[in-house]
């Protein structure tokens, strides 16, 4: 056993040695929990560091961050959270982990409807949940509203990712806000009956399915279209995009407009580098950062001074649904239950 004990000692020393390599706490830095993939945000953060000299330490994870913040209590090392989807921002707000931020810069850069009234979170970009329609098999004007998706003329023609995905949950929540429980349920049942296949894959996979002829209509976020149209490394995706017409829904003069969602950030309570964290969020709302979001990621900048990229512009101007983000967030649980009730994810045959 003594040999085992000895090697345990060696292991302990090794572990301690490793621990000492974790980021030092000295110097100007800010610690960020990010729900967005590192390859998406790296160019932004690098630019921030180059400009300000503040280093950004990042952990990327799509779940468990709230629990990590809560469990650490006063020892929580993170200063700010960067995320997509209003559901997560609102969840963090409800859990009480955000610090209210009062910043003239943020108030000037971000319109009031894209930030929390108490300064708990700030929207940085917007994306619309749109329709990708086959140029060959869907006539212009054949599909003009989310409500149309339940029309029997689309039987067997719609593709979509899991109904439980946060983007779809937000869309269903917006339907709940506009139409109430019963009408939304009937609508969701109609959409389910119109599906070409069981919900699967991500938004990009639905575009591919249109190209392949599996379905005619798909529900997707705007920026996926831009990424396919400009994909030099995988030119086949350009072909998928070519087969597709971008369609914004509910654009009629008296209609409500296309469903929107946000990506955003918030500063955490008890942040050890609070000033830097605020500086980071402010910088992300600045002209320079917003331009990167617009040009590289094909999102709609929250900052109205910054124009969308030329490519995004080519899809056309559209009217956005003015429903408040919190009205969507508070209906997410109900939306999830509705997806269960109509058994949406089992697809058209169930």
């Amino acid at each position, binding site marked *: *056993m003594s040999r085992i004990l000895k090697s*345990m000692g060696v*292991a302990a020393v*090794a*572990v301690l040695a*490793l*621990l000492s390599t*974790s*980021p030092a706490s000295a110097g100007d830095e800010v610690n960020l929990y990010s729900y967005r*993939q*590192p*390859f998406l945000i790296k160019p932004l953060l690098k630019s921030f560091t180059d400009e300000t000299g503040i280093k950004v*330490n*990042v*952990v*990327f*994870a*799509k*779940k*468990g961050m709230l*629990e*990590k913040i809560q*469990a*650490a*209590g*006063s*020892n*929580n*090392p993170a200063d700010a959270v960067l995320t997509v989807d209003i*559901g997560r921002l609102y*969840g963090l707000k*409800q859990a009480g982990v955000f610090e209210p931020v009062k910043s003239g810069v943020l108030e000037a850069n971000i319109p009031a409807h894209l930030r929390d009234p108490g300064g708990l979170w700030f929207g940085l970009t917007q994306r619309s949940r749109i329709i990708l329609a086959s140029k060959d098999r869907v006539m212009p004007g054949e599909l003009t509203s989310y409500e149309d998706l339940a029309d029997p003329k689309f039987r067997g023609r719609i593709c979509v990712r*899991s109904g*439980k995905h*946060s983007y779809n*949950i937000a869309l269903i929540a917006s339907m709940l806000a506009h139409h109430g429980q019963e009408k939304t349920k009937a609508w969701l049942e109609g959409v389910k009956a119109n599906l070409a*296949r*069981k*919900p*699967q*894959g*991500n938004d*990009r*996979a639905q575009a*591919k*399915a249109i190209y*392949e*002829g*599996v379905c005619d209509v798909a529900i997707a976020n705007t920026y996926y279209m831009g990424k396919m149209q400009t994909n030099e*490394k*995988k030119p086949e995706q350009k072909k998928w995009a070519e087969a597709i017409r971008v369609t914004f829904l509910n654009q009629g003069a008296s209609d409500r407009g296309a469903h929107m969602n946000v990506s955003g950030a918030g500063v955490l309570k008890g942040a050890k580098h609070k000033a830097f964290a605020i500086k980071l969020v402010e910088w992300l709302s600045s002209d320079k950062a917003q331009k990167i979001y617009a040009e590289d990621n094909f999102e709609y900048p929250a900052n109205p001074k910054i124009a969308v990229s030329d490519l995004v512009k080519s899809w056309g101007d559209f009217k956005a649904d003015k429903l408040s983000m919190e009205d969507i967030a508070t209906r*997410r*649980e109900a939306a*999830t*239950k509705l997806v*269960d*009730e109509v*058994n949406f*994810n*089992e697809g058209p045959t169930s």
Partner: protein
Amino acid sequence: MTTDTLPVSSASRTLPRLRFNLWSAGALIIALAVAAPIFTVLGLAITDTSDIWTHLYNTVLGLYLERTITLMFGVGIGTLVIGTGTAWLVTMCRFPGSRIFEWALLLPLAVPAYVLAFVVTDQLEYAGTVQSALRDMFGWTKPQDYWFPEVRSMGGAIIVMTLVLYPYVYLLARSAFLEQSVCVLEVSRTLGKTAWGSFTRVAIPLARPSIVVGVTLVLMEVINDFGTVDYFAVQTFTAGIFDVWLNMNSVGGAAQLSSVLLLVVLVLIVTERMARRGRKFHHTSNKYSELPSYRLHGYKAALSFIACVLPVLLGFILPASVLSHYALSFYEETLSADYFSYVANSLTLSASAAFLAVVIGLFLAYAVRLSQGPWIKIAARTASIGYAVPGAILAVGVLWPIGALDQSIGWIGNNFGVAIGGVLIGTIVPVVYGYLVRFLALAYGTSEASLGKITPNMDGAARTLGSNPSQALKRVHFPLMRGSLMTAAILVFVDCMKELPLTIILRPFNFDTLATFVYQYASDELLEESALGALTIVGAGIIPVILLSVTIAKSRPGNR
């Protein structure tokens, strides 16, 4: 003295009081420390979520259960048949390639299930190689022209999970077959059993504890999986757990559902234990002469070859070659990232966790053997049940004890005037702890099964000759168990290399492993960009897997 009496007869009629000595006290403390995250999950489950249950009961709960049971059943049977069958073939028979299959059959172990799921879908979907070839061949032009099975389905999930998980059963069955005394087999043949009869009536029943450990591990993997079933759009119980947690913002509800999964596993384990109650599986003879190998010819050799080559082909060669192909055109993204530090991080974490898990697993298994009565055993089993909890939920369970420990350390530090709050949360300690909690089952189960095959007479002899329990462990059990312990270490190592949810949630800032690097692309279904990383996970797993095979072959008692 409890420690001096060995459980020669385990049929103790009354529950003895737990008596403390170094082994039992140590075992209890370690078991509690490892079980803390599991208790945390159970603790989080104590909350009022009746509306969620009513909702689930009225809507999808039945569906989730049906899907989960179907998946467990399919993968359980698949891995049992492939794992045990191929293990028997390569151990007892000689046919073309059988020496190579001995180790090659382990290779799919190195392939993460989610990676195989991607590759299989990539090949079998409409735009994939298979369907494109079929269209060219028959002149079809659109999906409506022909029928092709849906890849993203229950069937796809069962096949993919069977292919990457059968090596657990193979590994344990093969060690068991190698450890068996040739006498019983000879006796069975002398008494007129056919080769098949000896296999089904003698070898399998004797190897049962090991095979059961293998299948139990497989079933726990099936239960805790989220990535693969999510990708294949199969709505299992885990899908429900994540809905409740992330869409309904109820971590308590998610913990309750996870606790139900734990209950299912407990029922499984207890049922099996009851079924083999009172039987003993150690060998009474020490005659380990060379195992006979039957040379197969003709169609028998061909069938055996096919039975062994298919799992390797589909579970390893296919994903490895597809990934290599993509890695060639997309290596720049990976190499320009901090690729080599990811490799180093993966190796360090996995090796530390493997070492700790084996030491603790052996310690607990031996403490159980020394103790009389059920208490230590219950503690050890509780500690090794973390394998059945979905990784992300287990991660939440790990966070709270670590957070509490951090607070205590900070408080102690404050009393001495040093600010050391939060020393653990930003380090790799939570990750290694998480791995340990999750994979202790592998190490403990293997140690326990291996110890079970050593007759208590050995302990008796060692003790009569004046050894204390530690010396007996060192001089008698450890040498006999070396092969199994190596197996355990490598299983844990390879599993840690592939592990994702715990690593993602528990890791410190700016810290990536190969698996997390693969995930940032894989989570966006970017298979090509993740190829080199995934290939490295597979590659790093192969070397230990081959080592493992050599160790097992050499581990046969009496091997010269």
